[in-house]
């Protein structure tokens, strides 16, 4: 290949750089803003780095009632939720990856159908209600214990593991349960890591169903608390338009930025792993078509 750097290259590199900057900039901005003083935010002169450096916004976040509880709740929902999801998904994907299983096609259709048709928000809500699982941590976890897409990814992976391994173990008298837990699950670890990350990101970022199902402040995940904060904020923003006194508002704004940083942090820590495995997961999905 020729190494000449043409005009096209210049434009292409410039475009891509611009895109990357535009994509990343909002995140840089909220970090900068969260460490800036209220006056500078007010003036609107914070661009790339904090002005009037202060950590008072974070201090206020940590003082805020219920924020630690919400953070812990989010971690709880993420870890326990992911573990439950993985267990349930394995229980479905392993048996259904076996071609010899009678009724396999029917059950697969039964599951895949739900990707395109669901009961909808109200019947689902009423179902939780009739089961007595409203406002319940357990209900919120167990009620979303499998995603059909992840099930398909894992099933495809299990099916790609050579059958000869299973046959050899069977000749040695191993049971299906033993073969699954001791041979197939360890071999499927890369795929399990991918779907675990899919689940973890979903659980951490999810807010809608938590908002619908959970009414107790002490059980709410961080995203819902953050949502309330943002709605409060924009409510006050509306007041600006009507000329209502909002002297208190801007200090709230830095607090909101700090809470956002706080909410993104776990994803940023996970991101290097997430990026690698997600790309694999998407490609796996692409190959499957």
């Amino acid at each position, binding site marked *: 290949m020729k190494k000449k750097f043409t005009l096209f290259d210049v434009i292409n590199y410039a*475009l891509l750089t611009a895109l990357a900057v535009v994509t990343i900039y909002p995140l840089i901005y909220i970090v900068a803003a969260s460490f800036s003083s209220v006056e500078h935010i007010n003036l609107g002169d914070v661009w790339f780095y904090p002005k009037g450096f202060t950590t008072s916004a974070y201090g206020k976040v940590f003082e805020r009632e219920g924020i630690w509880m919400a953070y812990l709740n989010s971690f709880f929902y993420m870890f326990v939720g992911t573990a439950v999801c993985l267990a349930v998904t394995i229980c*479905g994907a392993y048996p259904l990856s076996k071609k010899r299983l*009678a009724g396999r096609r029917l*059950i697969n259709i039964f599951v895949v159908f739900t990707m395109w048709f669901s009961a909808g928000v109200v019947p*689902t809500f009423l179902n939780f209600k009739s089961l007595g699982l409203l406002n319940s941590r357990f209900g919120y976890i167990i009620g979303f214990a499998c995603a059909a897409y992840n099930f398909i990814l894992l099933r495809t992976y299990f099916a790609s593991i050579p059958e000869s391994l299973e046959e050899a173990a069977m000749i040695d008298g191993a049971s299906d349960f033993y073969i699954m837990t001791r041979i197939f699950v360890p071999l499927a670890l890369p795929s399990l890591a991918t779907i675990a990350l899919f689940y973890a990101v979903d659980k951490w970022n999810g807010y809608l169903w938590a908002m619908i199902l959970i009414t107790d402040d002490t059980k709410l995940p961080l995203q819902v608390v953050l*949502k309330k904060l943002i709605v409060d*904020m924009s409510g006050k923003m509306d007041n600006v338009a009507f000329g209502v006194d909002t002297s208190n508002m801007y200090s709230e704004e830095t607090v909101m930025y700090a809470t956002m940083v706080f909410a993104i942090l776990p994803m940023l820590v996970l991101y290097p792993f997430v990026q690698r495995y997600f790309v694999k997961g998407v490609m796996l999905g692409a190959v499957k078509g």
Partner: protein
Amino acid sequence: MSSRAKVGKQKNIGTNRSLMSRIIRDRQLYLILIPFLLYYIIFVYKPMGGILIAFKDYSVYKGIADSPWVGLKYFEQFFNGEYFVRLLRNTSLISLYTIIFSFPAPLILALLLNEVRHAKFKSAIQTCTYLPHFISAVVIAGLVTNFLAPSNGLINNIIRMFGGESIYFLTKPEYFRTIYILMNIWTEVGYGSIVYIAAISAIDMQLYEACEIDGGNRFTKMWHVTLPGILPTIVTLFIIAIGGFLNVGYEKIILLYQPATYETADIISTYVYRIGIEQANYSMSTAVNLFNSVIGFILVSMANYISNKVNDTGLW
């Protein structure tokens, strides 16, 4: 197809096992399946029974079974209601703009990335552009709200810097769709490009070499090798996009819209959420959602059928 089925049958006869003995042989596998099936039955299929309330006057006290039947009352109410046209228009327009603008964006990004020769530059761009996909809808909506704030939001700061008047974007119906589409491109363009990059990497290098020998430059290579190479992927994804035409997600919209922008922002799924969860009008909400789901399902089935014909690969 038919010959394959025959072979399958012969095999079954060959192994000479009755259904019962196969079930007994695989009893442990069925046991393993139980938690998975229970989940689907209790939390996914059981609620589908609740769809019946679309045809009933649901009352919380009487429960689903004892509420009186009302036939198509709620469907009629919806079709004749003042919001029907608006909801259908808003949902179709957002879908249409998504297909026109959001759909090609990842493809263009993948093609541009494919022309980058420095591996490190390429992966840096990828790392940056994938990131927003992993940020929650709440934070994204918060960012958008803040950046568009009239008093000290970034966009208005820039507008003022150039001597313009600040605009309160989120209260103006005419801006809502643009904001929503741009936000979606921002969050999904990088992540969406992964599929195309994967497809491009599967193209045989020899085709590029052959094209080069024939005197092709990078544009002819892109046009005659890369694009045809990933055409099946593009067609499949396009058909899926068409199939999901009315299924616009509402997670982000309910965070951004407000009564002032309902005129352009209120779509079927946000309406279902609002009247169902916020106003507790359960039967009406379920009826509207059923209408949306049935149309969505028909569209997906059609898309899948076409995909199987054109592309030889379907969704199922």
